[in-house]
């Protein structure tokens, strides 16, 4: 018999604890049990990148992780990007440059772009494309996303 397992983790700075089946993916756990519906599920097999979140500071695809594997970790979802009601500079840039249309890929794009800019504050367009290579967008053709990330990078460099 397999009972439920209690998973305790930090999401966007707050500690949560909930019971779930060992079989449950972290993506489903975050959406269904903790209410972080900004985690989008596209393909559920690691191809589209929509479910990308940050786990202990590195991006991961939450559909390819089990919730039980996230025990004790610190997770950041798209809900944790804005602070005090102000959009993160990346979110601001996506808005300004039309880096999204339907918005389905956006939470994952933002997570990937955010990690990229932490590692490389001044990326070239090619480096941005490599940074978001694990995230599919079916609306923008990527160009506006690249523009957004470049603009956000410039903004972040000028303010830090």
């Amino acid at each position, binding site marked *: *018999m*397999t009972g439920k*397992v209690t998973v305790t983790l930090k999401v966007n700075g707050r500690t949560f604890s909930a019971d779930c*089946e*060992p*079989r449950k*993916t972290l993506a489903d756990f975050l959406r269904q049990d903790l209410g972080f519906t900004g985690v989008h599920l596209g393909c*559920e*097999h*690691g*191809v589209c*990148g929509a479910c*990308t979140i940050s786990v202990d500071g*590195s*991006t*991961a*695809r939450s*559909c*390819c*992780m*089990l919730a*039980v*594997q996230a*025990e004790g970790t610190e997770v950041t979802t798209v809900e944790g990007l804005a602070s005090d009601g102000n959009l993160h500079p990346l979110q601001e840039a996506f808005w300004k440059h039309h880096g999204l249309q339907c918005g389905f890929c956006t939470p994952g794009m933002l997570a*990937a772009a955010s*990690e*990229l800019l932490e590692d490389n504050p001044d990326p070239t367009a090619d480096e941005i494309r*490599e*940074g978001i*290579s*694990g*995230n599919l967008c079916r609306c923008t053709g990527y160009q506006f996303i690249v523009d957004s990330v470049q603009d956000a990078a410039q903004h972040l460099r000028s303010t830090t």
Partner: protein
Amino acid sequence: MAMEFLRPATWDEALAAKAEHPGALPISGGTDVMVEINFDATRPEYLLDLTRIEELTDWSADGERLRIGAGVTYTSLIADLADRLPGLAMASRTVGSPQIRNRGTVAGNLGSASPAGDAHPPLLADDAVVEAHSARGVRHIPITEFYTGVKRNALEPDELIAAVLVPPADGPQQFAKIGTRNAMVISVTAFGLALHPSTGTVGAAFGSAAPTPRRATKAEQFLAAELTESGRWDSRAELDPAAVTRFGALVAEAATPIDDVRGTADYRTHALSVMARRTLVWAWTDYRRKRVRTCA
């Protein structure tokens, strides 16, 4: 049937769990395992999560080899070992996407033993050794004996991969892979090359062109003899174009590919000969340039 989840905190606990439940499926980054589970292609009774075991995420210099713990991700391998293991680092950079490289491991590639795994050609070309542990003890498996069939490896049911041991490069290494785009592809075919000037030998291996990743032994022997007999290891003279062509042909000859959704057997064979020639020229150019740099 429900799936039981085992989450050992120590390596000894992991080995004990594997001994007790030999059918348990080890999971680390989840790149392969989670896809199979999400698709319901596999429903193991026990999942054995290795991500809590911190010692697995370390690498170290172990005598003449680098010992890469089973939990070392592609991202850390690229960051820490690219200078010492250039071939494996090149292959690692072509794995999936940043998200996948953050969690995926070389040991995971070995555990899956897919003929298309990107890490296999450089591991074969560089004479890696798989360090397998069980409650019974430690076993070192030469990489050439590790792949036993399509997605099958030489591990015993109670064994877990603890680390892979790879000698640091003693000469230029190269890797090439063909896919429909740069990221997020399973290779149509891939090729790894390692030149070993210190022993006058050559490592050449490919993926996705046989039931297992495979070394092109005849091509290795031909090139090593050619470079030795012509004195080129020392003279570092330009390669004989006929030898380059012959090397490519021998690599292609070693392949026994199939037609599948990613490509035809003919295409794979041809592509291998092209990749073998190109990587050889790149590696040799690198070798010649290094001398200029050390002399200057």
